[in-house]
C-alpha cells in the first residue's frame, strides 16, 4: 500500500470517471435534450429557412416555387450601354442603412440610460429602509405591463392634441406650443427612447441589485475604517464588484434593443426617424411582398447582432460564471 502512495504522479494519468460522474453526465444530457429540441425547431429551423430564402427570389404568393439567385438580394449590378454601372440590393439600400443607424442609435442610448438609471435604482433598493419589499415589487410594474399596452398608454400621454405631457408642459410654461412627439421626425426617437427606458430600467435595476447583494457588507465596513469617501467607495469598490452582473445585464438588454420591434411598431408606425431593422424587415416580408428581400434583411440583422455581441463579450471580457469571486 505504501509503495502505491510513493509512486510518482504521472501527468498523463488515465482520466477516471466515477460511476456518479457518469450518471450526472447522462442526466445532464437528458435534461438538455428537450431544450435543444425545442430550440432547433423554433429557432434553428426558421433561422436556416430565412437564410435560405435570402438567396432566392421567394415571394409570399409562391414560397415553394422559389429559385436560387445567389447574392442577388444583397448586391447585384448591371452595366448600361453607356458604361455606367448601377448597383442594386440590400447593401446599397439607403432605407436599410437608415434602419441600421436607427437601431444602433436606439440601442446605444436606451442601454446607456438604462444602465445608469438601473444602477441608481439598484443602489437605492439595496439600502435598508421601511417598505423596501413593496417598493421592490412596485418597481417591476412597468416591466410587467405588456409592451403593446404600455406603448398605447404612452401614445395617449404623448398625443399632440389630448396628451397629458403637452398639457402639463404648456401649463408649467415648459412648452410654448403643442408638440407632435411621436409624429415629428425630430422627437420621434426621443419619444421611443423615453418609453423604452421607462419600461426596461426596472429589469436592469433588478439584475444589478442581484449583483449588489453579492457584495459582502463587511467590505464596506473595512472601507469606512479606511476612510473611503462614498463616491470613491462606489467607483473603487462597488462598481468593480458588480461589474460582472452589470455586463451580463447590459448584454441581455443589448440583444433586446437591437431587435426592437413592438414598441416602435405601435408608438411611431411608419416613421423613417425610428424605423429599425426588425420593423423594416417585417414591412418587406409581409407588406411589400418582397419576401426574399426581407429575408436578406433578417439575415443581416442576425449577423449584425451576432458580431456586436461577440465584440462586446470579447472587448468587455464578460464572464458568465459569476465573475472573479
Amino acid at each position, binding site marked *: 500500500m505504501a509503495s502505491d502512495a510513493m509512486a510518482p504522479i504521472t501527468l498523463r494519468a488515465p482520466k477516471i470517471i466515477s460511476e456518479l460522474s457518469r450518471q450526472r453526465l447522462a442526466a445532464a444530457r437528458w435534461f438538455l435534450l428537450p431544450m435543444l429540441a425545442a430550440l432547433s425547431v423554433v429557432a434553428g429551423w426558421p433561422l436556416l429557412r430565412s437564410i435560405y430564402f435570402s438567396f432566392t427570389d421567394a415571394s409570399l404568393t409562391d414560397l415553394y416555387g422559389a429559385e436560387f439567385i445567389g447574392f442577388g438580394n444583397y448586391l447585384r449590378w448591371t452595366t448600361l450601354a453607356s458604361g455606367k454601372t448601377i448597383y442594386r440590393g440590400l447593401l446599397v439600400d439607403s432605407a436599410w442603412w437608415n434602419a441600421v443607424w436607427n437601431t444602433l442609435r436606439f440601442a446605444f442610448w436606451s442601454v446607456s440610460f438604462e444602465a445608469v438609471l438601473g444602477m441608481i435604482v439598484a443602489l437605492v433598493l439595496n439600502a435598508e429602509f421601511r417598505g423596501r419589499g413593496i417598493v421592490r415589487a412596485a418597481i417591476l410594474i412597468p416591466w410587467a405591463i405588456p409592451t403593446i399596452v404600455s406603448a398605447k398608454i404612452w401614445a395617449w400621454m404623448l398625443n399632440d392634441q389630448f396628451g397629458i405631457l403637452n398639457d402639463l408642459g404648456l401649463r408649467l410654461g415648459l412648452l410654448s406650443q403643442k408638440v407632435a412627439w411621436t409624429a415629428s421626425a425630430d422627437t420621434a426617437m426621443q419619444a421611443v427612447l423615453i418609453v423604452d427606458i421607462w419600461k426596461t430600467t426596472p429589469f436592469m435595476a433588478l439584475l444589478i441589485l442581484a449583483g449588489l447583494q453579492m457584495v*459582502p457588507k*463587511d*467590505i464596506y*465596513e*473595512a*472601507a*469606512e*475604517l*479606511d*476612510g*473611503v*469617501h462614498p463616491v*470613491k467607495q462606489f467607483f*473603487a*469598490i462597488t462598481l*468593480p*464588484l458588480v461589474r460582472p452582473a452589470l455586463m451580463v445585464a447590459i448584454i441581455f438588454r443589448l440583444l433586446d434593443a437591437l431587435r426592437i420591434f413592438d414598441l416602435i411598431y405601435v408608438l411611431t408606425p411608419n416613421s423613417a426617424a425610428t424605423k429599425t431593422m426588425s420593423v423594416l424587415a417585417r414591412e418587406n416580408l409581409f407588406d411589400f411582398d418582397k419576401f426574399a428581400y426581407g429575408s436578406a434583411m433578417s439575415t443581416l440583422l442576425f449577423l449584425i447582432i451576432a458580431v456586436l455581441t461577440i465584440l462586446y463579450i470579447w472587448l468587455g471580457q464578460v464572464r458568465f460564471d459569476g465573475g*472573479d*469571486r
Partner: protein
Amino acid sequence: MASIELRNIRKSFGVVEVIKGVDLEVRKGEFMVFVGPSGCGKSTLLRLISGLEDITSGDMLFDGKVVNALAPSKRGIAMVFQSYALYPHMTVYDNMAFGLTLEKGHHKDEIRQRVEKAAEMLQITPYLDRLPKQLSGGQRQRVAIGRAITRDPKVFLFDEPLSNLDAALRVATRIEIAKLHEEMDNVTMIYVTHDQVEAMTLADRICVLRDGVIEQVGTPMELYETPNSVFVAGFIGSPKMNFIGGERAEQLGAHTVGVRGEHLTIVPENGTWSGKVIHTENLGADSYVYLEMGTEEPVVVRLDGANNYRSGDVVQISPMMDKIHRFDAAGRPSA
C-alpha cells in the same frame, strides 16, 4: 498610542438593549480581550469602539477626548474582521495600500515601504501580487492583519479573527498575534473572542461580558484564581470548573462550591466525595475522568499522564481545600 475610556455606554437596536451600561478603561499599549458567550454584546462593544455603530448613550473617550460622533477613519484605529473583509478585486498589495493612498501626504515610496515592512513582518511578501481568492484562509487573515498594520493605528481591533481558521492555524496565528503585540508595544489592542483559551493566552487583561454588562475585568490569572461569580468561574479555564451544590456544599459552608478539575485528586480511601466513573479521556500529557455524583453536570477530574480507570469504577475524590471557590445563592463569592 491611546487609552480608551467607556463611560456608561449603552446601545439599543430598536427596543432591544444589547449593551446595558458599560464602564471600562483600556490602558495605553494594553492587550484587552473581550470574552463571553454568543450574544453577550462583545462584538457590538468592539463596533461601538470602532465607530461602525453609534452609541445610544454614554461617552466614549480616546485619550481623554470624547469621540462619540467621530467617523471611524478619524479615530486612528484599524480593524481585523472575522471574515477578513479583503477587497476581492484588489491584489494583496493594493488591499494593504488602499487606506494609505486615500490619506493625504503619503508619498508612493513611503507607502511601498510601509506595505513591504508589514508584509515582511507577517511573511506574506511572496503573495503581494496575488488576489485574495488565490490565498488560503490563514494567508488571507494575515493580509487582513497586514492591512491593519500598514495604517499604523493607535488602536488595533480584532473581531474574532481566528474563528474561520482550522485548529492548527488558529494556534499558529494566535502566536503571531502575541508576537505582534510584543513588537508593537505602543499600540492598544482590543480583541474579541468567545474562546477562553485565546483570551487566557493573549490578554494583558480580560473583560468578561454577559448579557451586555461587564461581569469581571482582570488579568488572566486574577480571573482564574479569584473569579467573582459562578459565571466567570465557569467560563474561564479548561476543562470547565466543577460546581457542586446541595448538602455537599453546605458542609463546606457555601451554597455552591466550585473546584477545578486540576484541583481534585483521586484518593484510595477517606475521600471527601465519591462518584462513579462514566467516561475517561486520555490526552497523553494529561487525562480527564468524568464522574457521576448527582451534580447537574458530571464532575471532571484532571490527572497528569494517562489513567486506567474504567467506566463503572467507583472512586473517592478530595479537593485541595485552599483551591476551592465558595459561592452564595446569588452566584457571588462568599467570604
